[in-house]
């Protein structure tokens, strides 16, 4: 399979609205976790900041996280990374993130975001497996992958099935057939694979289980799946019961089904300002001043707090 060009070269990371909504939802969730006693500000954030470091900036500014590590696999952009690094406190390591995971401190808790811009590969599963084996209790594991059909144009579910069999054979359910790999089912099969990998990863850990929290599906072009949760000991499991799930309506209990679909309606600045002045409103509400499809209005009601605003700035 030919991998797409590096996504940071194709699209400006700051202008991916659905991705930004996801980041803001995560931020909200982490703030809620802080409110119920998880000291998120003392966690280490380890991510794949690329040259933009958007998540690093947000998590440092709004969560107060000051232990930060960015891991970059592309050895050709080391200088560029260091040049763009927004805070001195961010450490940068070059290489495969799976190699860095065993080096994460066992004395602190972590947020680890394995943020890939291509479809699931054996190497990605390796990193997820290492993370679920290594992350101390109370840590949060996130994974983002491309869930467009893998391969080239013109390929069919049989080809996609072969791809996933090659990359993730041991984690696929038995007796899968091409129809299980239909385009609409690819996110779910990815979720199932990752769920199996994580469960395999924590097999040897008698004191923890994995508690799913996030299952986002969105597209800023390519359809992406972002899933994750917390490695929990009993104490964290009990503490998580206090999480306000009504407020965090996007929280999910399964990696395999019922993802929260982030849909960002395309609006003009004027439309957006109007809609915002009407918020909050329940689903089913419709704007009076202009036409908006029912589902777009519902989507906006859901995500208005997280909706990013972009404007051109003349410097």
């Amino acid at each position: 399979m030919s991998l797409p060009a590096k996504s940071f070269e194709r699209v400006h990371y700051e202008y991916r609205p659905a991705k930004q909504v996801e980041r803001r939802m995560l931020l909200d969730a982490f703030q809620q976790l802080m409110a119920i006693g998880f000291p998120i500000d003392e966690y280490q954030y380890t991510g794949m900041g690329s040259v933009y470091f958007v998540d690093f900036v947000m998590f440092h500014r709004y969560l107060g996280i000051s232990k930060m590590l960015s891991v970059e696999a592309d050895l050709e952009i080391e200088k560029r990374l260091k040049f763009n690094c927004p805070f001195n406190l961010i450490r940068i390591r070059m290489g495969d993130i799976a190699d860095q995971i065993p080096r994460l401190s066992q004395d602190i808790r972590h947020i680890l975001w394995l943020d890939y811009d291509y479809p699931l590969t054996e190497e990605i599963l390796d990193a997820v497996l290492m993370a679920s084996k290594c992350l101390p209790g109370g840590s949060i594991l996130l994974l983002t992958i491309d869930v467009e059909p893998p391969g080239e144009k013109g390929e069919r579910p049989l080809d996609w099935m072969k791809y996933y069999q090659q990359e993730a054979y041991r984690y696929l359910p038995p007796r899968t057939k091409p129809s299980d790999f239909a385009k609409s089912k690819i996110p779910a099969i990815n979720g199932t694979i990752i769920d199996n990998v994580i469960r395999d990863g924590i097999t040897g850990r008698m004191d923890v289980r994995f508690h799913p929290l996030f299952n986002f599906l969105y597209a800023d072009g390519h359809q992406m799946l972002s899933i994750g949760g917390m490695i929990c000991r009993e104490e964290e499991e009990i503490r998580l019961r206090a999480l306000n799930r009504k407020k965090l309506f996007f929280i999910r209990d399964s990696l395999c089904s019922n993802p929260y679909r982030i849909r960002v309606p395309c609006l003009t600045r004027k439309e957006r300002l109007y809609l915002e002045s009407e918020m909050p409103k329940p689903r089913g509400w419709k704007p009076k001043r202009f036409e908006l499809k029912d589902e777009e209005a519902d989507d906006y009601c859901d995500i208005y707090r997280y909706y990013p605003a972009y404007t051109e700035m003349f410097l």
Partner: protein
Amino acid sequence: MNNNFASAYPRKNFFIQMFTKDIGLEDCILDLIDNSIDGLIRSRKIKLSDLSKWVFAKDPKPSVHLTGRPVIRVTFSEDSVKVEDNCGGLDLEYARNEAFNFGHGPDWKKGFLGVYGVGLKRALFKLGEEFRIESHTIENGFECSLDVSEWIKQDKSVDDWRIPLKELPKAHSEKSAGTSILVSRLHNEVKMCVKAGSFYKSLYDSIRRTYSFFIGKYVRIYLNQTEIEPYRIPLSRPKGGNVSYEEFEKNGVKVRIIATIAELDDTGRYNQALAGWYVVCNGRIVLLADKSEITGWGIPPMPTYQPKHRCFIGLAFFQAENPLLLPWTTTKTALNKESPIYLTARDRMAIVARPVFSFINKKYPSDLDVEPIERDIARVVESKSVGQLVSNKNTIFSAPPQAQPTPRTTTSVQYSAKISDLEKIRKHLRKPKMGASRIGEYTLAYFLEKEGLK
């Protein structure tokens, strides 16, 4: 006869003919040596935890000078197998009430190599038709002889399971206290095996490897008059760097894991036979240079063993006062892979080994010659004993930075193409003399350009 009960009587036949099929001949002889070592543990009040401390000591020294150490002598021929020792002997009361039972009772004292209470009996039955045991402690002595083929015929009640035992005088001194086990009228399959030309060496290697830590510290073992030299696990440490090391304790089992680079063998190469995981339970080496799934190879995130891993070496050292908690099987030559402590340890083994695999992977790009790389790796490591490798509680493998070659930005691509297809391209481009490799470069560049990748 009470009709409300079904009979669940143990048949001698099961223990003599069936139970013995699950163990190999060499492992039976190792079980007899375990019996001698347990005699030593009993009589000298040795703690198995002391052995671990010794193994992990910076400068391990034998507790007793070589010449003063007890001796275990193993001799075999087509007629008999004999194991005799001056390791302190079996106590008469212990022999009467415990030693010949199948399995231990709930009051079984811990801290021995003997785990399940089956090894000695299974070995005796496996080897031959007749055995004689004579033992003297500094307080008492006994002998027992059994013709197994006669004994098996009487099997009507639990009383038929008793073994005749005769009291003997005590030993003259601690040095002469010990046990002698002679098994004669060997079974045909045993005779066939012991007369094989390779058996002697194979048994020598098994003993040497299994008891390498015991031979180093507590005992001397002879096989047919040849003193067995302890086996040294070929560990080394990166010069100025660290091995990966982790220790943890869970449910009464202390686990220490080391992963590092091996030392070169005598011929100056990495020996494939010595690479892999060594698993030790209470000082007894259970798996040696294992490269199979049982130690995680091929189970993600551990890679499948490949020749480039021949410089990898790992040690998983389990220690428990209660040997039942350890993950070994009854033969002590395999692991119970469903054991919770082993599942945890196997996870940690994969994690501890990971930095070593990263190091190896960086050294071995897929298309380079292997030998110069091996020499390159060997230059940065130095041989060490187990204890010398472990400096802090937990460490992560690191090798000193070496002059790194500039990372490769290109690789060669080679594939077969139809001559007729190449001809079509030449015609299309009107370049009849365009070489095949040039066509390859041209088409790759074309793809990158047209797909917007360049």
